């Protein structure tokens, strides 16, 4: 079902913590405990190192590509409490913006859907979430901070898709797009945030996990008639949250895994969920016709084949 097209030896001197391919599927970025971020050209099965971005002073936890309409931007966040946005100009990568206003390790970065403009959300172990907005007119970044978003620390942030369907009954009103975020943290909670005016307010608080929430992912809602969020946790569970109005959420436990679950990721269509965790295994999940979640494959790490 899944075939390997490329294996990139990143040459990082330490463990990799995140890897992401850009919008067009042409470039791969990786980040590692060796404090560096690397960018590779992966077109046509190649794996040529384009640049090695050094600017962090601690392990780099996560990276995120922006939508190409803002240029080739790459955001990275690190244990050194910084968020760096890198920009490529004439095939050279350079620091474009550095955000240093977190008091502890920054664990997660994600760019907002392009429809909202160039916006980056960052979740940090100091418990806060920062929303950095670029204003092209003034060529400046503006930071808004959600203080105390999660009591002990925020581990993950994810944006709601821009074309958020609304179900509140006021069909005829022309409503502006609403920015929403979901975040997971060390208080075992998943929280939904909504921008109201120039403030971010907590819209709902989802409580099912019994240990730290490690990752959250808001599904692109194409073809699915409601909001869907996946969250995974130290308690070894993955939970699928669904809602029609972003206020009341129903939870379904996808599966209890053998080890800590670190990572959840939705496909572009929002119909397949990829899960990975501390046991070094990957599994793919999709919903069958009856609406129950099924594991459709299991990629044993490093071997590159699928046991179905």
């Amino acid at each position, binding site marked *: 079902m*899944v075939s390997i097209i490329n294996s990139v030896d990143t040459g990082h001197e*330490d*463990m990799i913590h995140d890897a992401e391919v850009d919008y067009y599927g042409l470039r791969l970025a990786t980040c590692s405990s060796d404090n560096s971020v690397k960018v590779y050209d992966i077109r046509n099965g190649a794996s040529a190192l384009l640049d090695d971005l050094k600017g962090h002073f601690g392990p780099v936890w996560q990276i995120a590509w922006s939508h190409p309409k803002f240029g080739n931007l790459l955001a990275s966040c690190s244990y*050194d409490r910084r968020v760096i946005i890198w920009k490529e100009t004439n095939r050279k990568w350079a620091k474009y913006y550095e955000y240093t206003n977190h008091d502890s390790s920054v664990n997660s970065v994600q760019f907002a859907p392009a429809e909202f403009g160039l916006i980056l959300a960052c979740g940090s172990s100091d418990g806060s979430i920062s929303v950095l907005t670029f204003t092209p007119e003034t060529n400046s970044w503006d930071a808004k901070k959600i203080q105390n978003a999660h009591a002990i620390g925020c581990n993950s942030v994810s944006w709601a898709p821009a074309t958020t369907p609304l179900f509140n009954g006021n069909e005829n009103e022309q409503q502006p797009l609403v920015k929403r975020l979901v975040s997971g943290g060390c208080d075992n909670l998943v929280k939904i945030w909504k921008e109201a005016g120039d403030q971010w307010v907590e819209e709902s608080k989802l409580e099912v996990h019994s240990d730290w929430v490690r990752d959250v992912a808001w599904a692109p809602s194409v073809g699915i008639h409601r909001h869907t969020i996946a969250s995974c946790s130290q308690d070894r569970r993955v939970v699928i949250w669904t809602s029609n109005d972003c206020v009341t959420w129903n939870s379904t436990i996808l599966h209890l895994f053998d080890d800590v679950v670190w990572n959840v990721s939705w496909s572009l269509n929002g119909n397949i969920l990829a899960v*990975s965790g*501390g046991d070094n295994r990957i599994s793919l999940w999709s919903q069958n016709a009856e609406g129950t979640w099924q594991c459709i494959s299991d990629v044993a790490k490093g071997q590159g084949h699928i046991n179905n």
Partner: protein
Amino acid sequence: MTRLINNDYCIALECKDLQANAMSVDCTGTYALLAGRRCIALRNLDEEYENVFKFPRTSKYDVGAAEWNPTAHNKQICAISTNERLEILNWREETLSVSHSIRAHTRAISGLNWHRFDPNIIATSSVDTFVNVWDIRDSRRPTLSLANVAESSQVRWNRISQHLIATAHDGDIKIWDQRKGSYPLQYIAAHLAKIYGLDWSPHIENQIASASQDHSVKFFDTSNPRKPDFVLSTGSPVWRARYTPFGNGMITVVVPQIRRGSENSFLLWNISNRAAPMHTFVGHRDVVLEFQWRPSRPDDSYLQLVTWSKDQTLLVWKIEPFLQKLCGYEPDDLSIYDDNSSIGGIDEAASTVSLKRIQPLQQEFSLLNVHIPNLEVKNMDSITRTVTATCKINTVITHVKVIFPNAYPLGVPPAFQVMPGSNINDSIGSQLLHTLNHLAIQRVSKNRTCLEPCLRQMVTTLEQLLVDIDSDRSFERVYVEPTVSAEGYNDAYIPFPRTSGVKFCSVNILVCFGRPLLTRRLGNKNDSGTPRALSALEGILAKRSTDQMTVSAYYFQRQKQRSRSKHSLSKASKAMVHIYDATNLFLINRQLAEDYILYGDVATICKHNAAAAAVAGRRDLVQAWILIEITLAQRLVDDDGDWAGHPCGDNLLISLINHYASQADLQMAAMLCCIYGKQQENSLRKASLKSILSPMPGVSPYHTIPPADVVADGWVLPLLKSTRSTSLDNLRAEEIVVATIPPKIPYVALYEYYKMAYAETLHRWTLLYNRAEVMKFMAIQPEPYKGAEFIPDCQICQTPIKHSVCTSCRRLPFHCIICNTAARGSVNCCVICGHGGHTDHLQMWFERKSMCALCGCNCLFETTYTVGS
């Protein structure tokens, strides 16, 4: 007694010319015998001065082992081995005479051991594979000869039973009964590597400890030796491992040849707590060759350990009561040491026992290496238990006072204070204290001393803090470099790093990374899984005295040890990223996306697309396309039918779209939405034409344009606008359809969504033409162009012009550089030099030339470079 260097040990003898490699202390604890190739020396340990008796030897062989007879009856007798001979020395009236010289073996003797109870019995082991037991009263032949296959490296009599004897052969241990020498009682396959040392437990008859090249000491119950009772991992090959006479202690030394750097690995362990050594004996400048407990003296309250090192010094160590306590020894009169908790008694008792109590601190002070750059240690007062240190970095001076509570270092950290006179600001001060406290707590929680690490940390932290202040003073904020070794105070709340992950990227890419299959997690087997916080690394790795606390150390620890001997683990395998093509998981197909068309009439589109689906092997789609073709073509023929309500009309199409959407085949759903849109357009055009002609406007049943925010199955797209960019505008559709009841067309907003999502997929595939085709069917206006625009200034009045005619001077401002006439209509120009002209003229020009006709600009190249990159 002897020269006192420090409270920990005293030097009993420093003699470079001895070249001794065997040492033994007699059973009274008075004499230490040192034996080398050239001479044998005896040192009276009771005497203050280096009173040494030296007796030259004339042998070409070195002394392999030496041991005094352990019984009081023959306390003056010492045995040494030299090559294949066993020599029995007699120490009497300050002279040493050789009473026996036995050719005990045919090859070199590897070990010897006196019987614990019988003063005349000695056992020798040799590389000639035999272990012989001798009675020195009759030395012509051994009383017992134990035959083996492999060479014997050690022989030890049991300390409790007088019959049991253990021998080591390579990695195996044999247990014999001297009454039955034909075959061993037990054969223990103890280690995979060579065993260097054996020692019977002084308390438990059946327990034996073996020290081996494989970095471990194993403890066996000889009555049930199938697997070791427990294993002590020392991190380096163990030369000797011997029980302490008190508690559950064990002392290990590293194999002499293995020694690296300054670490001589002379360690004291508690065998009931094998995670980390209790104490490291620091004093020898080289590896310890031999060590022996000095039998306790009636006039000395401390136990003493005598050691002989390759640095040719004989040291006598006093074993502090707290060390004995660490090894689980509970003396009856412990109350005087155990005063940490008894608050009232401290002051009263202080005068009498204070000397004993401050020993650990004094020891730490004396061991402190005060040569730390940028740091000056001023007052070390073991009576008031304080230390003052001053750190000077450039012009910044920091005075720190460290106060040691009485219970320190047993779980109680010292207190740090920044003293007046320091010129650092409060935030740095608090940062510094935070770091120091954290480090101190870490150390003392393992009963380790912390002064020196803290002082060193203080210098590094200050340096770092000040560098940061200098470099970004404008930010006015303090930033601590989080070094890996001195992790920040809140690592307990930083999640444990991911070392594997998966992400769906772009359209159909699945990016995976993970640990190599070889890696195994550290920690106990009954561990409940991956830890949650970064601070877990410290907890697990500190126990193993790993140098670096990184995630990879956590996973690679075990491999590291193994790979040292064999192939080293390649760095590359740590950091592989695999990229999978997940196309087959989805129904969206790139080939179809390229082949599908949306221009032309509906029948042509359907035919072409059916063919494309057939090529791609999607027979289900072929059927769908054919079905649509049939129903829609029929509709064209039959103009007047009310297709909106017909079972094979709109409802069929709608249910098809729903079907594909529910199957997550966004591609087909979006394509059908476009066809649907096209169909609606056609019928609307027809209807409007009809209604223009008809005298009764406003009754058209074909009005299909929904109001802006159509609710369909609960879906609302707020971004929908009521404008449609089709030819409808020209037909003034608003006027035509008046006051009709719009037939219920569900899902329209949703359809916009499908099309938009499909368009994004095409965009990601960079199928821009196909995307534009789909976007034509969007009700939403595309975003106005926001990029750079070329606006020439009028050459006459210098105002920017957007049209072909200048608005102010009403002339044609743009001249073609080829024909030199005012240009209107299709023109092009270079973005760099601004020259241009009629498109066809420029095309002709640049077919032959690459340079601008007017200036030296390399128009084609420059333009490509700017736009293309």
